[in-house]
């Protein structure tokens, strides 16, 4: 292709300036292609990602996501919140699987304080963690359908997600942002009858998976639109820091839950398997996610049977001061590896919290993977990489 007359960086800078100042939808042509702006509102309400693509006909020359429309300054705000207040805040990073956001932070604080949650709390934590994974990925599957033109899947997803949310709500009191995890355990015990209810809910989740496998994953059109689109080789994915189902879709057999699960979660007590797919394309990523819902339903099913009795809270001081030190704890969140690097100075508030969110890395590969694809494939690739804006922008 011909060398651009205006350097690409200049051009992108110009567009973002323009759009930020006055206009939002920018579309203009230069000698070497048309620049098309998608966003900042994303059609599938993941939030507000803006993508600037340069097209040559139908083909993408370059594609640059412009995040920051949802940047809320978490890392700065954690420096002025006490430890229990931080959990309220970080709930809202990945808003579909909120409980999962709290866990790594709490685990990091526990590691610094050298506190262990009692066994019952660890079980319930793991169960809630998996429930939020389901709530998250179920919506992903629905959304994936919607973005590829099969809107039915969304209705199914929203319907069946309610059952999972009900279970989360029954324990934590919040559908979305439970803020339930505490340093040293959990806020409360399970309500009566919850275990049986959740078992019923798990059969529904299994049904949902079967239904969606027929409806979406097995669909010929879906396969035609996703197979071979957006192939990410394993080594490229790893150097971009891809994690979770995105990297397992490229054939890397690595799952934090199985391989080096931080103490405080009890994945080793259940019998489940890590799903991988060798292809590395959009289809394999979606397929792996669907299987993951199945597996996590399996995990929850087994753990429900063996929840030990006992307290749900260890002895912790009333006013939490975390001793000096640094700790990094990462867990396998619905979107991928999420970690918190907590630096404490022995104060009420953390000195610095680096939030390593999964989507941030997952989306940074977009410019690489979309070179030379066609415009509809951009949507497929973005949908299958699966991001949540709060998780990119923080």
């Amino acid at each position, binding site marked *: 292709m011909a060398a651009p007359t205006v350097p690409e960086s200049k051009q992108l800078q110009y567009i973002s300036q323009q759009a*930020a*100042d*006055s*206009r*939002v939808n920018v579309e203009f042509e230069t000698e070497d292609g048309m620049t098309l702006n998608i966003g*900042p*509102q994303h059609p599938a*309400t993941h*939030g*507000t990602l803006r993508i600037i693509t340069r097209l040559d006909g139908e083909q993408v020359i370059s594609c640059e996501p412009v995040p*920051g*429309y*949802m*940047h*809320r*300054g978490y890392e*700065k*705000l954690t420096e*002025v919140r006490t430890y229990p207040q931080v959990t*309220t*805040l970080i709930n*809202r990073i990945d*808003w*579909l699987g909120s409980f999962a956001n709290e866990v790594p932070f709490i685990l990091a604080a526990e590691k610094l304080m050298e506190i262990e949650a009692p066994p019952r709390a660890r079980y319930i934590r793991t169960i809630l963690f998996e429930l939020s994974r389901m709530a998250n990925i179920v*919506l992903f599957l629905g959304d994936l359908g919607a973005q590829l033109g099969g809107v039915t899947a*969304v*209705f199914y997803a*929203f*319907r069946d*997600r*309610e059952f999972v949310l009900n279970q989360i709500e029954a324990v934590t009191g919040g*559908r*979305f*942002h439970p803020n339930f995890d505490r340093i040293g355990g959990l806020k409360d015990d399970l309500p009566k009858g919850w275990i049986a209810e959740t078992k019923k809910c798990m059969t529904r989740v299994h049904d949902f998976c079967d239904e969606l496998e027929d409806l979406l994953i097995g669909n010929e059109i879906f396969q035609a639109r996703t197979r071979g689109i957006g192939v990410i080789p394993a080594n490229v994915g790893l150097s971009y820091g891809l994690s979770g189902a995105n990297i397992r879709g490229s054939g890397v057999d690595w799952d934090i839950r199985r391989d080096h699960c931080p103490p405080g979660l009890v994945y080793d007590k259940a019998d489940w398997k890590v799903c991988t797919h060798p292809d590395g394309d959009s289809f394999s990523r979606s397929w792996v996610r669907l299987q993951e819902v199945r597996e996590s339903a399996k995990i929850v099913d087994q753990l429900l049977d063996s929840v030990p009795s006992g307290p749900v809270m260890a002895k912790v001081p009333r006013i939490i001061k975390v001793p000096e030190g640094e700790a990094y704890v990462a867990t396998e969140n619905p979107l991928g590896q999420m970690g918190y690097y907590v630096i404490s100075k022995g104060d009420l508030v953390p000195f610095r919290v680096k939030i390593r969110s999964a989507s941030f890395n997952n989306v940074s590969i977009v410019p690489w993977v979309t070179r030379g694809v066609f415009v509809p494939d951009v949507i497929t690739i973005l949908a299958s990489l699966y991001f949540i*804006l*709060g998780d990119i922008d923080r």
Partner: protein
Amino acid sequence: MGLVEKGKIPKRLNDLLALSRKYSIWCYQWGLACCAIEMGAAFVSPRYDIMRLGVIPFPASPRQADLVIISGTVTDKMAPAVRRLYEQMPDPKYVISMGSCANCGGPYWDSYSVTKGVDQLIPVDVYVPGCPPRPEALLEGIVLLQERIQSEDPVERFRGEPIVVG
């Protein structure tokens, strides 16, 4: 609508107009953050089903919408886009601000990059509190808006002046 602008609209006709406007609100969803998912649940999930209230989701563009629901955190980078969206909508237009973030900044009240309340940018008719508000809360917000449409003076609304229902 010359009659409306001149303020010479008969009372009965007015009521009829308000009734029909009230039950055919074309609603543009401006989902920004977590609240967008609860809004989505209110709109597409069979359990909440907002259409029974006479709200029509999914207009093709803000230019065809009567109501916009701002749900989620508005950041300073996003602010021009929100403003522009509002300007694109035809009068009479209504705004629901959903969630603490859009109301006042919510959990990010001291952040350096969040706009503390969408009402700094555009006039808001109904505030729905909560973080996130349950879908039912949004439905109630819609009902409140419908009451307002029923009881407001269309002349002032068409002139684009904000109205406070007594």
